[in-house]
């Protein structure tokens, strides 16, 4: 075939052209709504940008300087840190325990798995409404506490407890999701490893420590990464339950960004805060990767 080389290159060329056609719609959508905004937000952060004015003023770093002196911003940072540090370890541990329990040889495993997963597929608006009822002063939680002679507070109305109460709701609603991730991880560990450990005389704790734990490392990494990104974005429950209050006790970074833009219409300022949020997430996940990166297979 004398022409094979030429037709080989045109074939390659055609393949690439069709690939770009296949990708075109996705790339247009992602460019408009993800890549473009990522670039644009870096610009907006340096402006005093207000949608209700025809022209915008360049500010330089002034938005960032103002953030550095904004007490509410630091409250939001602190609340976000407390939120993530509280929720991520607890939901990860709970998800792991649930997965280990459901993975045992017990009746009705599918039923339990489904039951734990239901909060994760339910609208956050719905779970927020239900927990508002549970947490209210005459609500279910205080009724249960009254059995033990405890007079509970109005949980969401108290600056001391509101954030913790929303954190508990978050653990409740996402543990089931991560349990499924751990279950998949558990089932991916080869049975032969457990048998080898048994032959070597490992106790059940030894098998857990030396087979299960190392085998779950990639899942753990995934669960913690998603947990961090998720908790840094918590918004729906805060909007629904406490609107950032009382006295800003539940104002998180994402809520701060939202009110800066959509209540005070300070888009440049909100963009600057969003840039800080993104930088923190990148930093935290990078540190976490350094500590716990699963070895590439």
């Amino acid at each position, binding site marked *: 075939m004398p022409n094979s080389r030429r037709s080989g290159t045109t074939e*390659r060329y055609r*393949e690439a052209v*069709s*690939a770009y056609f*296949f*990708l075109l*719609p*996705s*790339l247009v*959508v992602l460019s*408009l*709504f993800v*890549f473009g*905004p*990522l670039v644009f*937000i870096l610009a907006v952060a340096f402006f005093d940008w207000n*949608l209700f004015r025809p022209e915008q003023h360049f500010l330089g770093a002034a938005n960032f300087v103002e953030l550095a002196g904004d007490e509410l911003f630091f409250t939001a940072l602190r609340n976000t840190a407390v939120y993530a540090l509280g929720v991520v370890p607890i939901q990860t541990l709970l998800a792991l325990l649930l997965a280990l*329990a*459901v993975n*045992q*040889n*017990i*009746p009705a495993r*599918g039923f*339990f*798995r*489904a*039951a*734990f*997963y*239901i*909060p994760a*597929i*339910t*609208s*956050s*608006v*719905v779970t927020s*409404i*239900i*927990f*508002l*009822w549970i947490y209210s002063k005459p*609500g*279910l939680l205080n*009724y249960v506490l009254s059995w033990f002679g405890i007079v509970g507070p109005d949980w969401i109305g108290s600056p001391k407890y509101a954030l913790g109460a929303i954190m508990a709701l978050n653990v409740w609603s996402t543990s089931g*999701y991560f349990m*499924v991730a751990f279950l*998949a991880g558990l089932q991916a560990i080869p049975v032969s490893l457990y048998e080898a450990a048994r032959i070597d005389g490992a106790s059940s704790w030894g098998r857990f420590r030396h087979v299960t734990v190392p085998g779950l490392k990639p899942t753990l990494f*995934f669960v913690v990464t998603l947990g961090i990104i998720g908790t840094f*974005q918590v*918004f729906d429950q805060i*909007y629904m339950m406490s609107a950032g209050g009382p006295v800003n006790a539940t104002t998180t970074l994402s809520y701060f960004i*939202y009110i800066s833009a*959509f209540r005070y219409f300070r*888009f440049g300022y909100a*963009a600057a805060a*969003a840039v800080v949020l*993104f930088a923190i*997430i990148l930093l935290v996940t990078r540190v976490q990767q350094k500590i716990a990166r699963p070895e590439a297979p």
Partner: protein
Amino acid sequence: MTGRVRDLSRRAIVLVLLLVATGIFTLPFLWSLSISFQPAGDVFRWPIELIPDEVTLQNYRRLWTEIPFARWLLNSSGVALAVTLANLFLDALAGYAFARLRFPGRNLLFALLLATLMVPAHVTLVPKFMLLNALGLVNTYTALIAPAMVQVVGIFLMKQFFESIPRQLEEAARIDGCNRFQVFWRVVLPASRPALAALGIYTFQGNWNEFLWPLVVTTTSDRFTLPVGLAMFRYEFRVEWTMLMAGAVLIALPTLLIFLVFQRLFIQGIATSGLKG
């Protein structure tokens, strides 16, 4: 013998703990269901009666007559369906290019897409809103649908699936003279029903529950989706618990039914999208 007893008692303890956990995870839903059938009034009477003395449909009726619940239901369904169909087609199309076609920039592009999974919604929220505002699209269905038409997770899921199916059928279709799109449309998609079903369910459920974006991009009640409408109802009037719970039940019901019917696909979806990187 003692080993067996110990094993049995350990399993019994695990079972009891699991039952307690089941109560914690599911009873809140049963209570909200129960409250939604109570007559308006005191919802804090203890102990709770899961089956109220007086069962009424009044709360559900009022959702239809006193607030634009039907409109929100229509908006939510329409938007979620449009978004799901768009994702099924576009994610599969892009996933197929990554799975089967060679082109310059393939690895770079794929890495770029994966990197976007780290971008939180709040980071792109403000510029996304400004773009739609500049285009005069705030408070339109386009604004609700367009940004959600493609998901990187969906592209990734479809790519993984396409890589797992044999190439023979596609090669045969090529020899028969189909072009690449025809191969994709007539041969690959029909063979991808399980993956498409998983993606469709995942997308529908995610979009149905979406709150932040519809909250910022809709401004009038006739464009609200269900979660936004119910949130506004909570803030606009004094808290009407029985009606709120009826609304909550109706929002939760479709995702719950879909989950119970297609459980296996949900679990698979997480397992493949999240873990087998």
